[in-house]
């Protein structure tokens, strides 16, 4: 069962320099919410930004990770 911290570390490895926060929404290790701020997102559509995150986990999203809610932004967004 993955933990919020596992997910955070994997996103950070895939997107070096990103600011990542992951929350386990149910405490059950299967519904997560990730907020990611990264320069890598600049110039990308939301779809492409979210796909970058989904790609970190491949087939696990929709499998062992039932739900991964994502919020992405770039440092320039000032959010």
């Amino acid at each position: 069962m993955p933990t919020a911290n596992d997910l955070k570390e994997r996103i950070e490895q895939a997107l070096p320099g990103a600011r990542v926060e992951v929350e386990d929404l149910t405490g059950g290790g299967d519904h997560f919410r990730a907020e990611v701020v990264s320069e890598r997102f600049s110039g990308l559509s939301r779809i492409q930004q979210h796909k970058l995150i989904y790609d970190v986990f491949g087939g696990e999203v929709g499998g062992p990770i039932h739900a991964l809610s994502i919020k992405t932004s770039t440092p320039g967004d000032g959010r």
Partner: protein
Amino acid sequence: MTNEEIRSFIDNAIRENRVMLFMKGTPHQPACGFSARASGALNALGVQYAALDILPDPRIRQELSAVSGWPTIPQLFVDGELVGGSDIVMEMFESGELAELVGAEQPEAPEVEEQQPQKRPLGLENRLG
């Protein structure tokens, strides 16, 4: 129904319906909170859309994700293009981008409430036998 037939049903649904939502359950009875939010946003905009419940056969979801490259449900397509899942749909709903995209009026206080859907959902169930 073969996987190819399911795939072609999905392709057609995306092509033939300007606003097409793949979800768990139906707009009248969503079976998952994320799907409820996405269909609720479309209901709040009063937009005509088609919806397909992916739950009756696991192959629907499998084929859909193969078509879209998107792993989770719901998935919203507008004009044949994947717009996103529930997070993106909600962000765009709240910002007014979704209203603009589907050509609807942005509600003054965009909230997802109990609104009646504008169209009956598409049914695949009776074709699966």
